[in-house]
């Protein structure tokens, strides 16, 4: 449909996981100063909510930008299975090197989901609690009038 409009689809997922904010390169007092109670040696957990936004062309024969069965399956395999009921520090290899702050979790989820072949990932939002949310998006997503490609068919 050549009408100059852009359609995106947003979907929310959930996982529960534990983490500990601790940087090996810092001393114990520094870790405590920077991370406070999030530096507790045994870690703590959250119910995370992941909201993703994808864009693309709507297939006129299905009315869909993306079949949710495909999207849900991909997110389940790439993120939920890897993160749900896990210790992010111990069970997700990338967080052995990188502190699993929700900023870093957000970027990691974006990188994993940007490989989805059937739509373009625009933004990932991770809610660590109902009061803390983090977003990571494509550079052009934030720029008014940026080079967003049309998705008309």
């Amino acid at each position, binding site marked *: *449909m050549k*009408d*100059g*409009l*852009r*359609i*995106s*689809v*947003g*979907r*929310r*997922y959930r996982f529960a996981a534990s983490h500990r904010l601790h940087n090996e390169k810092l001393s114990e007092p520094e870790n405590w100063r920077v991370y406070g109670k999030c530096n507790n040696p045994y870690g703590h957990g959250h119910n995370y909510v992941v909201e993703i*936004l994808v864009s693309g062309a*709507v297939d*006129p*024969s*299905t*009315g*869909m*930008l993306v*079949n*949710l*069965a495909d999207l849900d399956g991909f997110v389940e395999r790439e993120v939920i299975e890897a993160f749900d009921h896990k210790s992010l520090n111990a069970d997700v290899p990338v967080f052995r090197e990188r502190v699993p702050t929700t900023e870093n979790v957000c970027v990691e989820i974006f990188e994993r989901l940007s490989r989805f072949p059937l739509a373009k990932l*625009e*933004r990932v939002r991770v809610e660590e609690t109902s009061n803390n949310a983090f977003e990571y*998006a494509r550079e052009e*997503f*934030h*720029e*008014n*009038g*940026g080079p*967003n*490609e*049309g998705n008309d068919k």
Partner: protein
Amino acid sequence: MVYLTRRVEFSASHRYHNPALSAEENRRIFGKCNNPHGHGHNYTLEVTVAGEPDPVTGMVLDLKELKEVLEREITQRLDHRFLNYEVPELQGQIPTCENIARVIWKLLEPKIPQGRLHKVRLYETPDLFAECCRNGAKAG
């Protein structure tokens, strides 16, 4: 620029079915959304209008007028309807969230009394929404 968002809810039923496809293909693509007698949702629509506040009133637009436009253009058309059969604007289209959002945009854009329509976000469930905006518009 100020962005103002108003929320409105409606309940409707729909069915995903493409008559050009076989019964088997319809079931494979649409799954339970292909159920012959349809199913329904409580939809939540968020309409965002962009504009500069009027120096006299301090308003981007009069919310009462926007409420009336939403009532007339959206609620009366879509609320408690079977979208496949009762909404002429959706004829010939599968009434997915994507297509409904686009139809809502086209209904609302010419009727916004002040400012300009910036974004339409339609929730089919709390975990699924579609957005419609102009190509090149700021996506925030």
